[in-house]
């Protein structure tokens, strides 16, 4: 291709051309408006950067090719709907362009999100180094405040939420017998918006005044008054939010319309149920955080007074709008994990999931109840006091559907044939730590206790038990479980076990003691603390470093196994769900022949039961050595 042709066709060359245009657009808009109004100076760095944060990522997305097909269609030029030229991957470069294959997009998501996980984790390591002893050792308070703010924002918006989207992106269409998602091009756009968000958040460290330093919660009026770094957060959230919403829409339409013949809702695997319910949460709730950040942005950039109490604004309104999303967000960060655990436990215990219907209903109950509890984040906020007790009640009630799930998984273990594979270890670790995190959640729901522990390290302990011991453990379980399907190779089981035990032990040593220091009086989001907390903080910090190192085992296992691991069979876990009935990795359009679903997805132990049938038996590659029963 000639250089000119490269610059005009979608891809990285065109990105290089598009970005300066994006910068130019920002200059043009800002300087044009300022000149027209006669404002001085015409060239305002803050304003140009703010507009640039929107125009430059958009330019990138246009340059790389996310909008080409739609622009062509909108302009009336001939388009070919069944154009699959962007589909599939045969070489590594295919993972670095706009690709319409859900399997490629899934891997793009997973790898990208883990990059942000590593960055977020390193930020935490710096924090723990600073907190290892009282006093200031490595970073000043402003930098420290930036560290925990970016850490949490990356972990929430650039890791947990999208990695579940990525795993589901890969697995879900296969699981329902579909050739791809309902909207493959939208799927690609959803993916590419994600690195935009992550780069914006990290770029804030280089803004004058430093990174946004108001926590991931960005309460106004602190967030309306801080330097430019804050604006990076408000806009990054828009890109991450748009990515999340578009993916959720895609999942909803795919699940509703593209299930294989015979797959009624009550024959869907629970991973599908979990992503279905999560997607409902995403589409309804995410616009609220977008709105809250837009209001902050408008207050900052255009002088509106949403949160300026002197001008009639309402400070607490920010918190209501923010938490109306951010509470459902924690269920967005957990429900897909629940789905993964159902898959892993039933497969590795060789048993149907106990109480399948109640498992599905409990997901729906969590969605509904999840919208009624947000003000439990605001018990000490000064909001109308009458709201507190109803919110305590709904918050405690949500323990019931969650408990249903834990008990059902335990009952699934009972009288099973249990294989302690790495995914199963992480599933069992999840049950332990999520139960602990859930208990500390019920404790937090109790208003008189919450008033004492609000904004202390007790809350930090709780959130990490449910988000790491909970969500991240399910993510590890899912990655190990579907690794053979995605890569066609088997991971190393010994390294997997080492990863599990090291992270389990040192996770508890890191976050367990935080319950104690919190109740004893140590606030959160502090660069320094009273001397009485020094010993426990030192223990926490040292444990956290070892905990951080445990991730290296996982990283090595993934990379080495992907390159050099033994080839995996189509169905090394002897599971019933449809994704295991095709090769590892699957054919480019998943199913050479669409299966018909004739029974439930977990009919282990029922003689002759099948989930999906093919008219001709799918050609299976010879069983690889080392695949199959993994004891």
């Amino acid at each position, binding site marked *: 291709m000639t250089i000119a042709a490269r610059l005009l066709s979608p891809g990285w060359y065109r990105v290089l051309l598009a970005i300066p245009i994006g910068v130019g657009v920002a200059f043009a808009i800002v300087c044009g408006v300022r000149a027209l109004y006669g404002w001085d100076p015409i060239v305002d760095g803050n304003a140009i950067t703010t507009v640039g944060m929107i125009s430059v990522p958009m330019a990138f997305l246009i340059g790389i090719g996310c909008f080409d097909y739609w622009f062509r269609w909108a302009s009336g030029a001939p388009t070919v709907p069944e154009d699959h030229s962007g589909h599939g991957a045969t070489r590594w470069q295919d993972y670095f362009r706009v690709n319409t294959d859900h399997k490629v997009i899934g891997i793009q998501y997973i790898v990208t999100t883990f990059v942000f996980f590593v960055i977020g984790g390193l930020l935490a390591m710096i924090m723990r180094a600073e907190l290892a002893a009282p006093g200031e050792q490595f970073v000043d308070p402003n930098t420290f405040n930036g560290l925990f703010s970016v850490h949490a924002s990356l972990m929430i918006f650039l890791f947990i939420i999208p990695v579940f989207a990525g795993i589901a992106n890969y697995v879900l269409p296969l699981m329902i017998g579909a050739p791809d998602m309902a909207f493959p091009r939208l799927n690609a756009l959803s993916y590419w918006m994600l690195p935009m968000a992550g780069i914006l958040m990290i770029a804030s460290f280089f803004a004058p005044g430093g990174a946004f330093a108001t926590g991931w919660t960005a309460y106004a009026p602190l967030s309306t008054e801080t330097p430019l770094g804050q604006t990076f957060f408000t806009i990054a959230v828009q890109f991450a939010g748009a990515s999340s919403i578009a993916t959720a829409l895609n999942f909803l339409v795919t699940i509703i319309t593209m299930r294989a013949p015979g797959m009624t809702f009550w024959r869907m695997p629970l991973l599908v149920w979990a992503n279905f319910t999560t997607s409902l949460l995403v589409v309804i709730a995410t616009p609220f955080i977008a709105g809250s950040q837009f209001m902050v942005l408008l207050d900052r950039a255009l002088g509106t007074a949403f949160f300026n109490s002197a001008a009639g604004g309402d400070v607490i309104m920010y918190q209501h709008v923010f938490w109306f999303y951010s509470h459902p967000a924690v269920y967005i960060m957990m429900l897909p994990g629940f789905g993964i655990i159902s898959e892993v436990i039933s497969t590795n215990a060789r048993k149907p999931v106990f109480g399948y219907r109640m498992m599905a209903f409990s997901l729906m109950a969590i969605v509904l109840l999840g919208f009624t509890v947000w003000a439990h984040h605001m018990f000490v*906020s000064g909001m109308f006091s009458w709201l507190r007790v109803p919110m305590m009640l709904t918050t405690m009630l949500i323990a019931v559907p969650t408990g249903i799930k834990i008990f059902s998984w335990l009952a699934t273990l009972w009288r099973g044939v249990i294989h302690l594979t790495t995914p199963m270890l992480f599933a069992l670790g999840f*049950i332990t730590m999520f139960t602990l995190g859930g208990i500390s959640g019920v404790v937090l729901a109790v*208003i*008189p*206790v919450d008033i004492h522990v609000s904004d202390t390290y007790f809350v930090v302990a709780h959130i990490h038990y449910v988000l790491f011991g909970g969500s991240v453990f399910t993510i590890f379980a899912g990655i190990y479980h579907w690794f053979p399907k995605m890569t066609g190779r088997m991971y190393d089981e010994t390294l997997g076990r080492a990863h599990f035990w090291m992270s389990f032990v040192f996770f508890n040593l890191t976050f367990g003691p935080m319950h104690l220091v919190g109740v004893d009086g140590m606030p959160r989001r502090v660069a320094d603390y*009273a001397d*009485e907390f020094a010993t426990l903080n030192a223990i926490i910090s040292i444990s956290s470093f070892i905990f951080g190192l445990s991730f290296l085992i996982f990283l090595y296992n993934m990379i080495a196994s992907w390159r050099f691991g033994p080839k995996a069979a189509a169905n090394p876990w002897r599971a019933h769900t449809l994704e295991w009935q095709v090769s590892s990795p699957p054919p480019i359009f998943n199913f050479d022949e669409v299966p018909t679903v004739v029974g439930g997805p977990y009919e282990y132990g029922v003689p002759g039961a099948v989930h999906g049938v093919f008219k001709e038996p799918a050609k299976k590659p010879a069983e690889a050595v080392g695949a199959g029963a993994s*004891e």
Partner: protein
Amino acid sequence: MEEHPAERGGKHPLMRMFLIGAIASAIGVAAGLAIDWFPTDATSSADEIDTLWDVLIIVSVPIFVLVMTVAIYSVIRFRARPGDKSDGAPIHGNARLEVIWVLVPTLIVASLAAYAWIVLDNVEAKKANELIVDVQGQQFTWTFDYPDPGGGAKPIKAAQQLWLPKDRPVYFRIHTKDVIHSFWVPQFRLKSDAVPGITTRVRVTPDKVGSYQVVCTELCGLGHATMRQTVRVVPPADFQAWARRGGKVGAGGAGAPAAGAAEGPQG
């Protein structure tokens, strides 16, 4: 003959699990109650809240033990032997069990909620003869106004330390001059955010003489970690003397600071 894991022996497995669970719970509850979780309890509310906490421990430990007992027991008892490719028992559900594990947790959380509501009402109840203190939060210090310190003393403005008489109910009205802060004395247990544009409230009755700290518990910027102020709960006579001095610390010094605590900016 190898027995199938799903039929593996041991009579009365449920009895064994229950016994192990009961012993583990007893040990766990004892440990949980023995841990000295809280800083000293310096208000009348603190006792009720600390008791509520103990009840939560007593309820939580057995629940956690139950989950762990079933999980560990199952993994040991039903572990697949090497090379075992059989399936487990095709159990899809058990209606009675599922009803129980919906109803019992609902009852437990409903009871806890009711108990919590009662404690909340008690600790927030208006009392007679309240001493009003206006707490002013700002980046990065707390100051305290006493509109009527009592005993004939004139109103105090912008005191740098929070002095309170033992055993008299206090009604804190909390304000901020800039961003959201949060007013908390760990030994008092109760806290409230300081919110621009409104006045928030906390009521406590300090009942233990001592020196404590106000800790800011809402991220307020650069100096959040150091936004602390000394609290002194003193006998009423000492409080009157302090009030008549205009809320200044005066000759004789500030008294013993809280052990090991980082002092915030002092007046």
